[in-house]
């Protein structure tokens, strides 16, 4: 089941909301869990049992690793020694540990903990690898070996496996690290992993972002209505913008007379499509989360206005970038072990980031392209005057401030990356990202930074060609059209004219301009009244239009009926 379906909008969601409102607080988690399992079952059928297995495995691994919370207490004590944990919190943790120590003195040895973690990771990554990458491996071996050495399994990909696997891994690793104690309540933990708003398209929510809300959360009309508006924005982005952009890309790809202008517009539209599609799903997840009392972290922050690739990735799929940083890049040594290893680490992480997006070498190439540009940016950053900002940030687009802090990712204080996501304001109330002070990108006037913004945009457009096409031939064909096709054709003119409003509106919508305009409106009392009217109109209009598109989606005329 997807959010942009009639089944979800007019059956699953209203039923779940109604039951959730009627359910006493005590049973709300159980209801959410049941709803999430139905949601997943509707889309994935028998793979539900795979997800349940992963939940159970992660829960048990967490409990095992968090036994008596030794690791947790040890880590906290270490932090206390370093003066990094608030006294009250530390006292609570100590009393917790003391109480448990009174029950039992049994604790896992570090070796057992490591083995447990390794076994868990082997199973979790093994399942992910098996279901997602088995055919890629088989096809690659067959291609290299020049024969049918391995038979592809052609398994259907379990929906959301990349997301819930990463959530489970982050949870178990964090418990292992002693970042927080293991969750003892299986219902709570299963609700966290399977929470339907973010289950199939993210964001990748860390357990500590929602653990308090899982125990007790407040519900209010303010939260609910903010969630409703955010959900509606996401729904509109997906159905009214992203799907139109995709239709344009499909039509542009099928033209008989390609032109360079159309090929560039098509590639740019594809980048916009991915942005609106993915960020639309994230908006819907965040909005639904709010409706149910959760603050799901932001996942996109106007990435297409970025002035550097590093900034792009701070704004694009934020939850994935931070996951790879904390669980792959930094454990591999980040930028601390010399230039060569730093570059190696970056390329490994970006190759994996690419493969995470899809089981194809085009995705790996897509990720690696970003990795190479990040390496180049880091090198240039060192040499240019702009590199006089924090040198570690200049070198290391993924890391925090210094090596000591990077040992514990939770303690880093990079203002752009480390702010508690829960503390972020609702995006409608958020400060305009353009106003944020990024010393690299924001200190120069627009005239000076514009070429850089354009450069990033063009790089992203080109790199996303790899993302789009499953084979190198198709991607190279697209590059060929972009660089060698005739500039213009009549068919291109038709398509571009036909979609000009969608293209321009989506390009504007990918910037914070509308958000700024909204802020300007709501500054005055009259503006706030107007904003209410606009909000209501927006809500009704988007719901009607989305319904119209979904209903029309079943349009299947028998055109050549037998008269």
């Amino acid at each position, binding site marked *: 089941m997807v959010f942009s379906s*009639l089944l979800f909008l007019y059956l699953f969601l209203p039923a779940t909301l109604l039951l959730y409102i009627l359910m006493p607080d005590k049973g709300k988690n159980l209801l959410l869990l049941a709803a999430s399992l139905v949601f997943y079952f509707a889309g994935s059928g028998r793979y539900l049992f795979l997800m349940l297995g992963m939940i159970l495995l992660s829960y048990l691994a967490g409990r095992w690793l968090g036994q008596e919370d030794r690791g947790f207490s040890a880590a906290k004590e270490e932090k206390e020694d370093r003066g990094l944990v608030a006294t009250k919190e530390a006292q609570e943790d100590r009393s917790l540990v003391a109480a448990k120590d009174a029950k039992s003195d049994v604790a896992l040895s570090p070796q057992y903990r490591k083995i447990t973690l390794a076994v868990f990771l082997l199973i979790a990554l093994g399942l992910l690898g098996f279901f997602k990458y088995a055919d890629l491996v088989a096809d690659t071996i067959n291609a290299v070996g020049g024969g049918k050495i391995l038979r592809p399994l052609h398994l259907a990909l379990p929906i959301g496996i990349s997301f819930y696997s990463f959530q489970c891994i982050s949870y178990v690793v964090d418990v292992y690290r002693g970042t927080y104690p293991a969750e003892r309540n299986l219902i709570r933990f299963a609700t966290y992993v399977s929470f339907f708003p973010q289950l199939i398209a993210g964001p990748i929510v860390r357990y500590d972002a929602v653990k308090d809300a899982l125990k007790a959360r407040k519900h209010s009309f303010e939260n609910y209505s903010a969630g409703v508006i955010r959900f509606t924005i996401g729904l509109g982005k997906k159905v009214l913008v992203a799907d139109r952009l995709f239709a344009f890309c499909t039509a542009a790809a099928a033209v008989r007379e390609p032109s360079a202008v159309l090929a560039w517009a098509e590639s740019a539209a594809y980048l916009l499509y991915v942005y609106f599609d993915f960020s639309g799903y994230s908006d819907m997840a965040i909005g639904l989360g709010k409706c149910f009392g959760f603050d799901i972290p932001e996942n996109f922050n106007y990435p297409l206005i970025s002035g550097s690739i590093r900034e792009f990735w701070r704004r694009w799929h934020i939850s994935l970038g931070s996951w790879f940083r904390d669980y792959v890049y930094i454990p591999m040594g980040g930028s601390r072990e010399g230039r060569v290893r730093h570059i190696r680490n970056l390329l490994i992480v970006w190759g994996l980031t690419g493969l995470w997006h899809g089981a194809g070498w085009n995705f790996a190439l897509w990720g690696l392209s970003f990795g190479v540009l990040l390496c180049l940016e880091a090198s240039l950053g060192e040499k240019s005057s702009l590199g006089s900002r924090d040198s570690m940030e200049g070198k290391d687009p993924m890391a925090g401030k210094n090596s000591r802090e990077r040992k514990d990712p939770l303690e880093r204080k990079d203002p752009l990356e480390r702010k508690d996501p829960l503390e972020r304001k609702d995006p409608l109330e958020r400060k305009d990202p353009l106003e944020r002070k990024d010393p690299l990108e924001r200190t120069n006037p627009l005239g000076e930074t514009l070429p850089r913004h354009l450069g990033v945009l063009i790089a992203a457009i080109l790199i996303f060609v790899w993302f789009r096409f499953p084979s190198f031939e198709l991607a190279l064909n697209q590059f060929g059209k972009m660089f060698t096709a005739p500039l213009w054709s009549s068919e291109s003119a038709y398509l571009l004219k036909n979609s000009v409003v969608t293209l321009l509106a989506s390009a504007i919508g990918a910037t914070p301009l509308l958000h700024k305009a909204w802020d300007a409106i709501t500054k005055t009392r009259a503006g*706030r009244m107007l904003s209410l009217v606009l909000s209501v109109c927006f809500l009704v209009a988007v719901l*009607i239009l989305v319904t119209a598109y979904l209903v029309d989606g079943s349009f299947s005329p028998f055109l050549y009926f037998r008269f």
Partner: protein
Amino acid sequence: MKKIPSILISILFTLILMLGSILLLILPKETYSEAERRPLSTPPSVSLDTLLDGRFFSELDTYMADHFPGREFFRMMKAVWQKDVLKEWENNGYVLFEGSIIKLEKQVNTASLAYAGERFQAVYEQYLKNSDCRLYAAVIPDKSFFLSAEGFPVMDFSDMENRFADSIPGAEYISLKDSLTLEDYYRTDSHWRQDRLLPAAETLLLAMGAAAPEEESAFQIETYAPFTGVYAKQAAFPYEPESIQYLTGTYLDQLEVRDYDTSTVIPVYDPENCDPRDAYTLFLGGAKAFLRLENPNAKTDRNLVVFRDSFGSSIAPLLAGSYRSVTLIDLRYISRDFIRRYMRFTNQDVLFLYSATLLNNSQGLIE
């Protein structure tokens, strides 16, 4: 967000969704879509298999879309949004151009042309190869042909004409491109208008060496209204119903039409009994496998055989004025082996007259 606006928005959103659900559940369900000419989906069956492989939920989603309250209203909303706000010309492959709804045929379907060509060649081999019949072929342009000059991406009609002509050995190709304009077609339908077909009929008749049709002034015009063509509801654009105008008088009133399926004589026009959903069926009774129009007032002994689709129904009476008889054969409803039961091919003019729309979607021709 302040409290009252928050309450208002919260309630509004929840009410809209719940209202949609309730109406969907309680309103009676239709079984057939006139716009799409197809039966609407039925509730999905529940079984362990359909649940586990996801079919139940995907079929349930389709069922909801098919039976959503105000389905046609929502479809029209989408069409209007795309046309008037997004300024897109197309909706589901249809465009609204100068008041006429047109389905864009963007590419020649070579596989379909090849399939149709095989059917025609088989007829040629079986009946015409060794006969003394004179063979002719003509493609009726679809409405999108007239958009090519306007910059719309439509198929290469000349390519289709060449492929079609090549599929019938020895046939003389007659081009109708210059005898027709967009105004010669109904605004809401794919078909051409009989009251505007005299130039096209003249082109065909003269090319076949027959006498030109009578002057327009010799005919009377009758009207059937209201008429809403198949494109209107499919495209979902707002539309005004139109009317069908058909020619009567002179020899037309004496034409005798024999339906060989039912062995009956049927009227040339039957406005009382035509299907109002497909009012174009008033011409020669609609879908018929084998018809013969006999003209007792003919001043010639020549006979014409037309392999045709639905477009042939409206032009055949105009061709009949220049022949003793016009035989209409629709290969969608009759296997070629059965044709021999009804006729022999000898010394006739044989015209293969097909619309571009059918040639591009020829799967209906019987193998």
